[in-house]
């Protein structure tokens, strides 16, 4: 993001040559300077006041390539990502069906609204003990957590999307006696697409968190467990790389969705409901 806003010194034409202007004269410089300051404070602060094992930026950079090349880490990343994608796919299909039904047919909306809102507010972490009893201490528990984490945000957004179908379109369909499949696939699905995308975004974030929580709780192979195991054995630098990987997954997903939207659906500008 490049803000066009001029920052204090640059406002006067950028001709000033002062220390402040060199350091934070433009937005990019200001951001870089702040980033370096944060890293420097982190490095020095930890070196001075914290125990030896606490992560420091320089050490993280040192271990970074090692961790990425580590087969254990790669397996963990693949395991977590596969589970998240599987879970999201299931949540997406099931959630869209339920959500669209709720949006189009008032019976379903009235009957299910209470349950959907209730489960959506329910913090998924509280369900973990229950999920482990039902699905055992294994990968199934993680998958169930991910589906649960993603499902309800997709339902809510799919419902809002299906409700937002312009009634004129439906009237035209009715007037021309269009078959039901046109009404569903050509109109309802397409006009609720932006909401669905918003739902997937939200669900992806929650699903990733759900995967990590489940791995913590069940001690299952994955990035969450990688972080936990290394933090416990006081290898914080490696553990921080795991956290960075989680952030990277989230950002990568976001970027992919943005790219797909711009590439294939450039006419969509509307946004669905956020968190």
């Amino acid at each position, binding site marked *: 993001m490049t803000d066009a806003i001029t920052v204090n010194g640059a406002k006067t034409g950028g001709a000033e040559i002062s220390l402040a202007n060199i350091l934070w004269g433009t937005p990019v410089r200001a951001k870089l300077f702040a980033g370096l300051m944060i890293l420097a404070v982190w490095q020095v602060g930890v070196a001075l006041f914290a125990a030896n094992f606490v992560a420091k930026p320089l050490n993280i950079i040192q271990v970074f390539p090692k961790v990425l090349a580590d087969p254990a880490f790669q397996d963990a990343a693949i395991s977590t990502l596969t589970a998240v994608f599987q879970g999201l796919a299931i949540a997406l299909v099931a959630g869209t069906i339920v959500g669209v039904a709720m949006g189009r047919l008032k019976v379903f909306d*009235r009957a299910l609204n*209470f349950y959907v809102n209730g489960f959506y507010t*329910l913090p998924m972490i509280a369900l973990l003990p229950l999920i482990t009893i039902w699905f055992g201490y294994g990968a199934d528990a993680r998958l169930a957590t991910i589906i649960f984490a993603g499902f309800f945000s997709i339902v809510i957004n799919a419902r809002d999307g299906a409700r937002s179908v312009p009634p004129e379109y439906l009237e035209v369909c009715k007037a021309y006696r269009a078959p039901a499949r046109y009404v569903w696939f050509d109109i309802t699905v397409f006009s609720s697409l932006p909401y669905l995308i918003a739902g997937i975004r939200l669900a992806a*974030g929650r699903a990733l*968190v759900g995967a990590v929580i489940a791995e*913590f709780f069940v001690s299952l192979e994955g990035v969450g467990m990688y972080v936990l195991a290394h933090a416990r054995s006081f290898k914080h630098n490696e*553990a921080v790389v795991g*956290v960075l990987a989680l952030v990277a997954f989230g950002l990568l997903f976001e970027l992919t969705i943005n790219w797909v939207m711009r590439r294939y659906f450039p006419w969509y500008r509307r946004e669905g409901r956020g*968190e």
Partner: protein
Amino acid sequence: MNKVISLVNSDRTLVRWSTVIISLLLGAAIWEAVGMSFNQAFMAPLIGNEEHPGTLPRLYVYFFDDEEYLLSLVQSIQLFSTGFVLALLVAIPMGIVMARLITLRIALENYILALYVTPMIALIPFILSILGFDFWPKVLVVFLFAFFPILYNTLEGARSVKPELIEVARSFRSSELAIWRDILIPYTLPYALTGIRQASGRALVGMVAAEFFLSTSGLGEELITASRNFDMAGVLATILVITGLGITFMRIAQAVEKKYSAWRGVDR
């Protein structure tokens, strides 16, 4: 057939209410039937009998006949509110200061966004091994979960403050205090409240996570103990209590947000 469909979809009060009531009763009946037909270590019914302890009777016992449980509830609420209030006290002033100091805002906003999207749950192992098992590490977890949604949204508000307003205020020689009181706070507060609503949900997750993974206490401890004893009635009842807490916090935040949302975009 079509008549039936249009009847159940109609907006008549009777139809509306009966759909909701039938659906709730059906849900309760399914819960009860599933609970009665499974082993009591696997699922507990809603009401239950001698053999299958029910969830609602357990809830009653928890609230009216179990002082320890109430103590746990109070403990959890204490943890939540300490962390949440601290997050409020730090995040909102920080956001408003950044509305005033534009350079600072531009310098920091990307880093704040990055931390906003970081799954805070992944930081719990670090907090555990650096700070240990006390009350305050748990407060830190709740704080971290709540802090970034509030700060991020307040920052969004800070971005919405028009520089012209501050320039006009300056040229009329208004005092710094007046700028804060009449421009910065009215502009950023509604956004901050959106953040507070988001944060109330996240902080609840933080609360339970802290009670699970740091020293167990409060409702988290009750939940873990019940699940280790395969006491499903206890597990389900505690889940209901936590959901109730979540809904209460959310409702309060929503009410406050609604009250001040009229301030947003006054001159758009």
